[in-house]
């Protein structure tokens, strides 16, 4: 019964989306207030109904209702509750339902917090948002219905892929989707502005918080996924340049660019058509990502069950929306004249450079991801494009971005003075060069990666501090630091976070140490500065798995640093093994231990990795997200959000 209610609510939500896609648009073009006003309650209703539908599916997973095909295929009665819940989106159908739920949520938030938008713009934004909604509701209902029943329910389910039964991955998709799908609202704003034929500073200000919010969630989502890969896949890789990862990374890069170009629109009424184009492309790449994950065009370990019919459907959605918006863009771009004036040396120019670098970096990822397909179709060559290509082709642009970022961040608006900015940065530069030199001197190889990473890290962090210090003026009144606008703090924290991540990636890749051996009990061995000893191996039992668990003592200078328990698990229902690495986390780096099979000659395969600065990668990502959140909480956005928002308590998530 509850399942049918959920199914019915989903159909109702789809119908409401149809109304919301048509009525407000007509109202906006005819200037009929009553028709435009339909958008707001429709968006709310659409969200509530989708939420009911989602809750019904979640209920089915929690009570293990094996009359639902989806539950049988992705759940098991013995699974811990948290993974029953995360099982809802650990499969194609459920994740699509989560996708439309978030789409509806963003639409509803635009309705709730968009009180200050001009009525026609608001009606059009919600109309476009609902059009995207209609397409995805149709996709779910016609090709991927999660509420299909089985005539003969089995006794128990087939369990969720054990790799997905993990806290990091349980919450990775929701964050990722909040980011991906949040960009739909930027797309709706862009399309609505094109229909209106009007892009001004106010538009830049309205679209920025939504971009910031999406980017922030995307950052957390990607970081969670990468962290999961690091500890779960058993060798501590954190990024594989897999098509599916690239699919989430491309919108992130474009959202970061959009975030910065919207500032120029807001401040100077310039870069308007570029910003609109970015907003369209950012969501376009989200759709490309969805297409890649679900079509099977580019197979990947992360991909869901693939099906050509679904692939075609999403391709159609992609073509209609991106193509439609781009056509509209081509027709209207000419009317968007830039108004503001700025000098060659100015913050605005630096932001243009930022956008060039981010967009080109995104393009490199895009070309690399699709090249195997292009080469096969056009030249009949079956080839691979893997991590070595991306590391070489993508990294230079990021390094360049890291080098110029501090200078741009300190340049004045409109007309900056290069000499002044450079003078202020001298201490940061000296510090960064000194650290890079130290890294060069201390490392054994002659690789440049480590020193360059340390330089960028120190350069970005120190310059962010410099940025804040210059804001307090000559008086050295440190109390003023706390009274700075939150957006200034957000900028500094996010930029420093990027430095921390860069340093982490470089440190890990340059200085990782590895040791593989057949270890016998009570025979110590050394890796780097540490001594390891396998104390014991025993069989342990979990709720839906059993494992061989090793006990390894890690010592440094005779003192125990850590006692680690790596596991090799088996999930009998899903018939899959997983490795659970044991990781000793520390600020300077991780000790990462994995246990494998018993060896014929006695002993066990044990792999030990020393991973310097590993935590910095995700710590930096968290800082970036925190910076985004700080910016989002800035008073400016609350002012921009208008009178309705002013009466609400602060800290509303949509700010």
């Amino acid at each position: 019964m509850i399942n049918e209610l959920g199914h019915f609510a989903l159909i109702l939500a789809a119908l409401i989306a149809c109304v919301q896609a048509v009525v407000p648009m007509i109202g906006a073009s005819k200037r009929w207030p009553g028709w435009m006003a339909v958008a707001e309650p429709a968006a709310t209703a659409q969200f509530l109904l989708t939420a009911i539908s989602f809750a019904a599916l979640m209920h089915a997973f929690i009570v293990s209702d094996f009359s639902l095909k989806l539950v049988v295929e992705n759940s098991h009665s013995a699974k811990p509750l948290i993974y029953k819940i995360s099982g809802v989106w650990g499969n194609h159908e459920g994740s699509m339902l989560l996708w439309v739920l978030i789409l509806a949520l963003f639409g509803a938030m635009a309705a709730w917090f968009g009180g200050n938008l001009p009525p026609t713009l608001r009606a059009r934004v919600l109309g476009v948002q609902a059009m995207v909604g209609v397409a995805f509701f149709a996709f779910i209902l016609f090709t991927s219905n999660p509420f299909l029943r089985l005539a003969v329910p089995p006794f128990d389910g087939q369990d969720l892929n054990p790799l997905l039964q993990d806290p990091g991955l349980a919450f990775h998709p929701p964050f990722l989707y909040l980011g991906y799908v949040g960009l739909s609202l930027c797309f709706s704003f862009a399309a609505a502005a094109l229909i209106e034929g009007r892009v001004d500073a106010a538009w830049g200000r309205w679209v920025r918080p939504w971009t910031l919010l999406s980017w922030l969630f995307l950052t957390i989502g990607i970081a969670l996924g990468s962290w999961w890969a690091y500890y779960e896949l058993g060798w501590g890789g954190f990024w594989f340049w897999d098509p599916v990862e690239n699919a989430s990374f491309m919108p992130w890069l474009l959202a970061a660019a959009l975030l910065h170009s919207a500032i120029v629109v807001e401040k100077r009424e310039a870069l308007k058509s570029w910003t609109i184009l970015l907003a369209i492309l950012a969501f376009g790449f989200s759709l490309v990502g969805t297409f890649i994950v679900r079509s099977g065009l580019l197979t990947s370990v992360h991909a869901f069950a693939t099906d050509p019919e679904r692939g075609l459907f999403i391709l159609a959605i992609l073509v209609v929306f991106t193509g439609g918006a781009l056509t509209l863009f081509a027709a209207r771009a000419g009317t968007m004249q830039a108004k503001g004036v700025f000098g060659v040396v100015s913050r605005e120019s630096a932001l243009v450079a930022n956008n060039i670098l981010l967009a080109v970096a995104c393009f490199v990822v895009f070309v690399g991801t699709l090249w195997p397909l292009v080469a096969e179709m056009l030249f009949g060559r079956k080839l691979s494009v893997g991590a070595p290509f991306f590391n070489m082709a993508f990294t230079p642009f990021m390094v360049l971005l890291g080098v110029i970022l501090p200078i741009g961040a300190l340049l004045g608006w409109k007309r900056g003075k290069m000499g002044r900015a450079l003078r202020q940065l001298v201490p940061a530069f000296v510090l960064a060069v000194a650290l890079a030199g130290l890294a060069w001197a201390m490392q054994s190889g002659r690789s440049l990666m480590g020193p360059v990473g340390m330089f960028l890290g120190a350069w970005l962090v120190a310059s962010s501090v410099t940025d804040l210090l210059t804001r307090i003026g000559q008086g050295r009144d440190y109390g003023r630091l706390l009274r700075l606008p939150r957006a200034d703090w957000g900028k500094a924290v996010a930029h420093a976070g990027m430095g921390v991540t860069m340093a982490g990636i470089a440190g890990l890749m340059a200085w990782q140490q590895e040791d593989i051996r057949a270890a016998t009990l009570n025979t110590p061995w050394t890796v780097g500065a540490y001594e390891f000893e396998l104390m014991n191996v025993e069989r342990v039992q979990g709720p839906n798995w059993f494992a061989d668990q090793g006990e390894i003592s890690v010592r440094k200078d005779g003192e125990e640093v850590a006692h680690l328990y790596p596991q090799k698990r088996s999930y009998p229902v899903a018939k899959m093994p997983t490795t659970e690495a044991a990781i000793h986390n520390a600020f300077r780096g991780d000790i990462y231990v994995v246990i494998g099979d018993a060896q014929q000659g006695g002993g066990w395969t044990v792999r030990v990795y020393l991973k310097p600065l590993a935590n910095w990668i995700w710590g930096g990502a968290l800082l970036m997200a925190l910076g985004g959140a700080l910016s989002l909480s800035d008073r400016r956005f609350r002012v921009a959000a208008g009178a309705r928002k002013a009466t609400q308590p602060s800290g509303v998530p949509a700010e």
Partner: protein
Amino acid sequence: MKRLALILLLLCGPALAVQPDEILADPAQEARAREISQGLRCLVCQNENIDDSNASLARDLRLLVRERITAGDSNAEVIDYLVDRYGEFVLLRPTTGGWNWLLWAAGPLLFVFALGLGGLYIRARSKAEAESEAQLSPEEQARLKQILDGNG
């Protein structure tokens, strides 16, 4: 298709890749083997190099690489040997031959193009008449005031 994905996952599943019995006695040769391995694709996996993969085919390739190295091949010879047998699909780092130059040049080319475009744009902006703030229409002035007062 789903079954296939599952099989692939099983084949390349998370477990130990390089086994202790594969490791060469000479650390220099082993280091070369690892370096080569990281550029070679496990053919039955997706985007995994043979160093990280647990598939039995990856193990065969790892052993093959080590066999060639002990036989005295240079790194380039080992790679050529594998490309001869398995095609360029095995290379994670595509060659620059044929149309592949476009893949490698795409980023730099676009970068140069975008720099030019961006430079022209910035120049145009810096030379443009200062018409912006002064030329708000009365309508826009009113709207601006409304927004700034926070009751738009």
